[in-house]
């Protein structure tokens, strides 16, 4: 199809083109809701079935880093919304600025996430043959645990083992390890898939930034910025659900 200015050949008017792009993105986001939904359901059912093990899992996550990332993402949604606004009112230079700010915040989120993943690796919490939920209480120095914090963690793990014994007499620790592993399998699947969406979003931002240098986006034509904005906000909202589900339920330290 030929393109006349910003109007693609299959459309009659720019307005029709914009409506079409927006509807397309909204429908895509609906598919994303169902895509993440299957995983959220799997998580919820297992959380209900193995609340003790999942409580232990959730407690090992770093609340400060998770909280920091939540703030970063909300900020990035703000800058994204500002980029859309700047395009709509024709402040073409600011469009670029806000898009770059959004990209930086998105990159910061991924950086913090990488630190968290590294921590899980060091603490033997990656699902697989080396997984050991009691690694930190047995090697407190390598996890930086000491004093009252260490005592608390020990007590919690003992309580969780006891809870698992009810279902699995004589093999509470094995069961706890298996079920905590299930928690971390879901943790990595959910946050990993979310991070993948962030990376795709960052790619879209780069593409927008490259075009915005020429002052392409203004009041007359800003559909790509708006549509990418919708996607970006959606990815943020997924995190807004992931954060309490993974970090906050049953938190007691």
């Amino acid at each position, binding site marked *: 199809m030929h393109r006349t200015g910003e109007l693609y*050949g299959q459309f009659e008017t720019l307005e029709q083109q914009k409506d079409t792009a927006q509807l397309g993105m909204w429908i895509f986001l609906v598919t994303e809701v169902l895509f993440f*939904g299957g995983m959220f359901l799997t998580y919820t059912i297992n959380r209900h079935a193995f609340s003790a093990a999942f409580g232990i899992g959730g407690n090992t996550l770093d609340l400060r880093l998770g909280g920091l990332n939540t703030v970063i993402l909300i900020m990035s949604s703000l800058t994204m919304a500002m980029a859309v606004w700047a395009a709509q009112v024709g402040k073409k230079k600011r469009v670029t600025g806000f898009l770059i700010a959004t990209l930086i915040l998105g990159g910061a989120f991924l950086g913090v996430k990488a630190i968290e993943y590294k921590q899980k690796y060091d603490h033997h919490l990656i*699902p*697989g043959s080396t997984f050991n939920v009691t690694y930190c209480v047995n090697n407190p120095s390598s996890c930086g645990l000491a004093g009252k914090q260490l005592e608390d963690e020990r007590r919690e793990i003992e309580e969780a083992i006891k809870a698992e014994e009810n279902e699995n007499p004589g093999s509470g620790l094995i069961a706890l390890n298996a079920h905590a592993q*299930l928690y971390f399998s879901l943790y990595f699947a959910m946050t990993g898939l979310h991070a993948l969406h962030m990376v795709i979003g960052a790619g879209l931002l780069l593409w927008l930034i490259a075009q915005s240098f020429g002052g392409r986006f203004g009041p007359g034509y800003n559909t790509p910025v708006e549509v990418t904005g919708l996607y970006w906000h959606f990815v943020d909202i997924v995190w807004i659900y992931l954060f309490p589900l993974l970090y906050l339920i049953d938190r007691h330290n």
Partner: protein
Amino acid sequence: MPKVHYLNASYGLKSWLLTTDHKRIALLYLASVTFFFFIGGLFATMIRIHLLTPGGFLVSPETYNKLFTMHGVTMVFFFLIPSIPAIIGNFLIPIMIGAKDLAFPKLNLLSWYIYIIGGCFVLYSFSTGGLDTGWTFYTPLSSIYSNSAVTPAVIGVFINGFSSILTGLNFLVTIHTMRAPGMTWFRLPLFVWAHYATSIIFVLGTPVIAITLLLAGLERMFHLGFFNPAMGGDPILFQHLFWFYSHPAVYIMILPAMGVISEIIPTFARRPIFGYSFIAGSSIAIAVIGFLVWAHHMFLTGESVYAALAFSLMSYLVAIPSAVKVFNWTSTLYKGSISYDTPMLYALGFIGLFLVGGLTGLFLACLGLDIHLHDTYFVVAHFHYIMVGGAVMGYVGGLHFWWPKITGRMYPEFLARIAAVVLFVGFNLTFFPQFVLGYLGMPRRYHSYPPEFQALNVMSTAGASILALGYLLPMVYLVWSLKYGAIAGPNPWPATGLEWKTASPPPTENFDVTPVVDWEPYDFEHRPDLALEPGIGGLLPAHGDD
């Protein structure tokens, strides 16, 4: 034929592989879907040959498991699901609503590439030993215990899902925003309504199987425990998630075929369709209710009696919109001047076979009866009546109906009628004995059977060979017609849709000027341009094929 049309507007491999024209993409799909159809058909042939004797004499039990798995995976994900939507729907939806193309032409091409990439993974799995899990990929067999090439197949089906999602998305947006002036919602052809309903399922269902297969694939690759009971995971959860998509997927296969039938019947009965809004609404109803019945596949694998009761009831409810369609089609036929051209033969065949397939579905939705029939050949026969008797009949019928539009040439009518009859006979001979076999207790997916079942199995295999002939015939004469078929002209039947107002084959932009619609759908009475020559009474106007 017009001098310049979409087929000769540009030349060279690149003009096809990088095309964004929905009509050319439809033909890319036609070639690749046909390829997969013959792969899947090859497996089916081997299954039927193997079952000629009670012990089975062609392949080992392990290979037999792989054969029916690969048959199912190929036919469901790479033939049935894309067949009508991605080929006929892709070609027709923009033309039927008076648009120049789909809303997102590049995305449409991307869908085809995704389909091809997914297909390559699956073919890689087949060529490195194949897989033996059944097309349902039940865990923990698929994720832990199977020693076959499950991983590439799961990846392939996962990737292919995005092709469905993007096609559905494209259709939904196109139908919403790309309609020509005057093409209101209730002037849309019922084919478009059927694809709207199908697209809803594409968009809402496919992501769920994508994430489910992703989790199962991760479980297999990294030994995780999402669905592995040994590690606390829940295999029943996998089944719930799997069927949440895969039952609605049945309606992905049958709804577009119903759309095809709704176009063919009024055209060859020369009457406006009876109950337009009910047929349109019943498509949506089937799509919606179809999402609430999934656990009827699991009556015997563990769910509460109350859940089973609810799912049984909801399954019965699907019969209502399905029956609405059948009654409306038959009412359209009443006092029509019916002609038995090839597409009409397929449409009438569809109604009969769909009726059998649908009613036997009610047997299976019945909680008590399902205990007896579950996992027997009765189930196999039931869904083949829907998928082959329904969906494939609709697909082949639609291909004939729109062949003149797609290629500009007529197929040979006499041969085509013979092929339609051969298909109908072959189909029934293949699958009706399987109802009996299943009722007598022959389980599905077994490589051998007690000797008393041999007669019925031999009948089924004999039918399959007739069926194969029925598929090969159109392959031959449709290809033949590309060069030697009579010139069709813009409206050979004649029919009422917008697609018949443009040239055959259509120009790249579909219409020279954007059409303005000021007539109601299927209105044969007030369209003097569609009047048949007096005295012929419903037979074709002369287009020189007989």
